[in-house]
Every structure is written in C-alpha cells, then in structure tokens.
C-alpha cells in the first residue's frame, strides 16, 4: 500500500538536505526581537489596560507578563477573570469600557462574537488589541499578533525535523484539533513541507474532537497507530492538549519505541516529557513576544507613530538545546524585556 512505499522508495537526497538545512536554521535560538524601529516620540504614561483573562493556561501565564511590560511604561493592567464563555467575556469588556480603561487586551478575539464590544470600544476611544486571532486588524482592532500567516513556519519546521530525523523515511501522522482554527495553517504548512522535503514520505491526518481532549485522545491515537502500523512519526498540532497522557498510553500499548513525537506549542508538561525522552522536538509558543508586541503596539499608537505588523519568532527545541528551566514559560529571545525597553527609550 501507499504507506509501505516510503520505506522501499529511494530517499530524495535533495529534499533531505533541504530539510536538514531548515532544521539547522530552526534550531538556532533567536536573539533579536522582531520589531526594530524605536519609538521616537514620547509615550504617554498613566494608561490603564484591561486584560480579559480566559480561564485557560495561556491567559493565566500572560497576565503577569503583560503587567510587567506595561509597568515599564508606567501603565497599569487590570486582569479580569472570566471563564472564557463569550457572555462573560462580553460583560468584562463592557465593564472595562465603562471603567475608563484605555485599552482592552483579549486573546483570540473573535470579531463576530465581540462585534458590538469592538464597535463600542472604538466609539469610546478604547483600543482593542488581541493575539492569535483570525480577525484582521483595522475596523476597531488596533493590533493582532501571532496570526495564522505568522504561524506558517511552525508546520515547515516540524516537517523538516520529521524528514531529517527519519533520514527521509517517515510515515507521518498529523494530529489535528480542527476546533482550533488558528492552527489550520500549521497543518497546511506541515503537509506542504513533508511533500517538499520528502515526496516519498506519507502524511496522514487524524482529527481529534474537543470532547476527547483530556479523556480518550491518547486512546484514539493509539488506535490509529495500531491500525496503521507503518506510522513512525507523530506531529501534534497542540502539544499541551494532545500530549497529555500520550507517552503513558504509547508505552502501555508497546508503541513508545516505534513512533517519534514532535509538536507545536509545548507547555512545561511537554518539556518534561522531552526531558524524559518521550518527545523529540517542540516549537514552543513565545508568550513573552505576544505580550510585549501587544504592549508595544499600544505604545506606538499612543505615541503617535505607525503601528506595523509584527509576529513572534519560532524555535525548534530539542532535548539538548532546551533551556535549563522549562517548568515556567520562557522568552525565546533571552533579553526580550531589555530589547523592548531600548525601543521604548526606557533603558
């Protein structure tokens, strides 16, 4: 069948080399932040920002980072706890607008769900900033970072890693959560990358429903692997959600040695699994970059300089290159704070 083809087919050496080149590039930890233009006008102080927290890990991590970044500029951040349900989030934004906040930050803002709030904010002169949203900027939305397009390298890096690690003999499975639409692009670039680096490799996709997360997702992956015994690489679209319990399930099913896991994102749990040898490579999310970029955008806006597009960078992390302490989120660019301070004239 198709999947057998890869092991017999001759390795496409050109592709393999290209993959190795990509991996080599991706494995280098970035040292420079992605915005470079200093703000040459005074940044007003005393701004009040409301961060609408969403009740999941990322939001919980972001709150303090935002507060720290804003503090540099003499601003304050009110973190409003919500359970992430749109009704509560809407209420929180309404309250922020009423309370005289100068800006609202909301992760993954959905323009349809918050159309009224975005319009109200615009009318009230309150800036609306988001990350990881499918919405395009403008029309009430000042800035969006970690957009679908900006995420494109992730899939490419993962594909390159799979091809180079396998020496061009990979049967890869991309485990997707189609509910997380922002990551659709990653799936596309992964597939494209596999085709580019290794035309003879196979790539298939398994979609996991939201209701399986934290429950029978590992069992679904194990079942897939048992019914597709040739698969030897798994790429996780959301390592945090999909990796929970996966190493244990693979071990119990006797599959741990047969497959290699790579993935996008990666919370501390995934790094612990990498440390234990259960995960080969990760492309983590740089929440520091997101947060500093969002604050930077507000600073530019209020200083009266143009707000450009800016996204995070990506780094293919492996066990030997992983930072020492992965139990807490870390910035990709070690001196992220200092570099932004420099741009803001605060150093």
């Amino acid at each position, binding site marked *: 069948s198709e999947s057998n083809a890869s092991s017999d087919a001759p390795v496409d050496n050109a592709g393999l080399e290209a993959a190795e080149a990509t991996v080599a590039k991706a494995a280098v930890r970035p040292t420079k932040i992605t915005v470079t233009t200093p703000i040459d006008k005074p940044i007003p102080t005393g701004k009040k920002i409301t961060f609408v927290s969403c009740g999941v890990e990322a939001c919980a991590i972001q709150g303090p980072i935002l507060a720290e970044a804003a503090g540099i500029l003499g601003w304050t951040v009110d973190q409003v706890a919500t359970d992430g349900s749109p009704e509560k989030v809407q*209420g*929180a934004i*309404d309250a922020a607008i009423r309370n005289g906040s100068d800006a609202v930050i909301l992760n993954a803002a959905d323009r349809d*769900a918050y159309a009224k709030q975005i319009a109200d904010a615009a009318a009230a002169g309150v800036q609306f900033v988001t990350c990881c949203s499918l919405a395009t900027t403008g029309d009430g939305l000042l800035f969006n970072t970690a957009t679908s397009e900006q995420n494109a390298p992730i899939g490419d890096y993962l594909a390159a890693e799979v091809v180079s690690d396998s020496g061009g003999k990979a049967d890869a499975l991309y485990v997707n959560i189609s509910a997380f639409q922002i990551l659709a692009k990653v799936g596309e670039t992964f597939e494209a990358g596999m085709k580019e680096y290794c035309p003879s490799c196979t790539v298939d996709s398994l979609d996991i429903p939201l209701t399986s997360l934290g429950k029978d997702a590992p069992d679904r992956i194990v079942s897939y692997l048992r019914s597709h015994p040739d698969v030897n690489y798994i790429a996780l679209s959301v390592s945090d959600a999909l990796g929970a319990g996966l190493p244990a399930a693979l071990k119990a099913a006797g599959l741990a040695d047969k497959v290699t896991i790579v993935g996008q994102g990666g919370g501390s749990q995934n790094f612990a699994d990498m440390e234990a040898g259960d995960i080969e490579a990760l492309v983590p999310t740089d929440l520091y970059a997101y947060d500093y970029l969002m604050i930077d955008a507000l600073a530019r806006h209020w200083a009266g300089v143009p707000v450009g597009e800016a996204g995070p960078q990506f780094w293919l992390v492996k066990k030997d290159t992983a930072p020492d302490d992965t139990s807490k989120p870390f910035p990709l660019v070690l001196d992220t704070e200092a570099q932004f301070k420099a741009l803001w004239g605060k150093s």
Partner: protein
Amino acid sequence: MSVKTEDEVVTPAVPRESRRTTTSAASRWATLLAFDKVGAVYVWLAIIVVFSIWVPETFPNLMTAKQILNSNAITGLAALSVTIPLAARVFDLSFALNMTLCGVAVAHFVVDGVPLVLAVLLGVLIGLVVGLINATVVVAMKIDSFIATLATGSLIQALITMVTNDTPISDAKLAGGFATIGQTTVGGITLPVFYFAVVAVGIWYLLEHTATGRRLYAVGFNPDAARLAGVKVARLQFLALVTSGVLAGSAGIVLASILGGGSPTAGTPYLLPGFAAVFLGATQLKNGRFNAGGTLIAVLLLGTGTTGLGLANAPQWSGALFVGIVLIAALMVTGLQRRTTLAARPAALDEPSHGDDATAPSKDVSA
C-alpha cells in the same frame, strides 16, 4: 404562629368572613419576606452591600445592574429551560448540548442563505425534536431521565461534531439580522434580558396559575397519587421534556446570536450553573418547588457576585470560591430557618415529626 403556605401568594382570595384583609396583607408580606422563603435575597442584599463598600466607584450604579442582567440572561434562560421538567421531577441533562446544537444549526442555516425567520424556526424545530427524543426515551421507553438524557446528550454531541466538525461557524452574514436577536440593546439592556423576563413570567404563570402547573407539581411530588387523581402523568412528563427542548433550543439560538456565530461548545459552560441556579431557586419562595421566581433570584444572586468580583479585579479563583460559598450560605440560611419554622408548627397531628411537607427537592434516582 404565622406560618403560611405558599399558596397564599397565589390565591388572593381572602375569605371574606373569616379573616380581616389588613392582617392578611401584613402577614402576606411577612410570608414573602420570611427568611425561610427568601434566604437567598438576604444573602444577595449582603453581597450588594459588601461590593458597594469594596468598589464604591464602579459597583453601586445602574450600569452595574444592567451589566449583571445582560451577562446573565443566558444562564437564566438555561436554568428556566429545565425548571418545568424538574417540577415534574424529570432531569434534562442534555439541555446544554441542545443549546449548542440549535445555535450551530441556525448559524449554519443563516450562512447557507436561509432567510432569518425560517432559520430561527428551523432551529426551534430542532430543539423540539430533541425534546421529543428525550421524551420518547424517558417516557415511552421508561428509562430513568438522568441516564437517558446523558445518553441523548451524547447523541446530540455527535450531531454537533457532525454539523460543525468542531469548528465555530462564523461568517459576515451572521453580523446582520441574526446578530440583532441577541445583541440589540434597549436602554442599555440587551434583548436576551427581555426574553429571560418573558420566559420567567410565562413559566411563573404556567406553574402558578394554570391547572397544568399544579398537575406538573403533583406529578413531581407523587406520580402514583397523581395518576389516581386522573392526571395524565406520562403526557405531562412528555410535554415537560418537549418544552424543555424548545426552551433550551431557543436559548441556544439567542446565545449563538450573542456570540455572532455557532460555537461547537457554546452551551456546555451553562450546564452546571443552570442546574445550580434552578436548584437554589427551588429553595426560594416556594419551599422546595422548582419555580421561576426562585430561579430568577438565584441567577441574579450568582451573577451579582461574578460581576462584582470582576469590577473589584479579584483574582481568578475568587469567582468559583464565591459561587460555592454563596450557594452554601443561601441554602443554609433558607434551610435553618425552614427547620426552625417547621418545628415550631402548631401540633396538627399526633404523629412523629417526620414526613414534613415539601422540603428540599429530592430526586428519585431509581434507575
């Protein structure tokens, strides 16, 4: 002793000869405000005072009241949708998924270009069909409602995943007429608040002022006796579940409109809060009867806390802590008072003190 039964409120027919009107009116107020009737209201007032002192700039004003109403209308609609089946002691655990299903279905239709009114009607129809399925499984197949609606909920989940592939349905088309259903504001109050009010009044009327309402309670308290009294028990349980399906479906459509699209997980967050509100509500006003007024009080009580904590920038965990403490406090205040009042009841009959009248809503779990 001034213990009155709950029907005092409902039956303003004061016997002309036997009681003076003034006494009756006064005691009716006393009844209405008794701790054991509206313990939660006192807890609510306490919370309002606390937040007014804690966040004096932003909390005690009309805007806050509007925010509380606006951000809890859906919870209210969700809770109301299970009030009728619970009155007949039937669980509908599938209501939250039903909300999701109807929401994504209508969003789907609107995106497909189905005229808005038709799309909404189709959505309500789906809710009706879900209700019919629940009713068939529970009433016709005689499967315990708790497990039966868990099962149908699973079927609905499968449908939702099929319809949406777990991806939210969004489209510019949804920002048009569809968005107005849930997002239009009138004097700072969104339409869902009015829907909530209308449904609450409707359910209050049904349960308090119609024969069907009394029969529903009769079925809930003692289905065998109700059957002997000529009540069509199965039919009422059937209708209760169908109504629940329609109400939950409609709430889901409103929710989708608020969200501006069909989210495949929209309803789930309302499952436990919905039940919490309706169970807390049952301890209010009507001594153990699930009722619309009590549900309203419960929703506002819990909603006030959440909003207040948000305005006070309280930490993330404070919301859950608040809900837990307030639920227990409200139930305790109500329960303690109730027991004292019952114990002090005039000796009407020479029998041991058990078999008290309707106390906490008990569930028949028999599978």
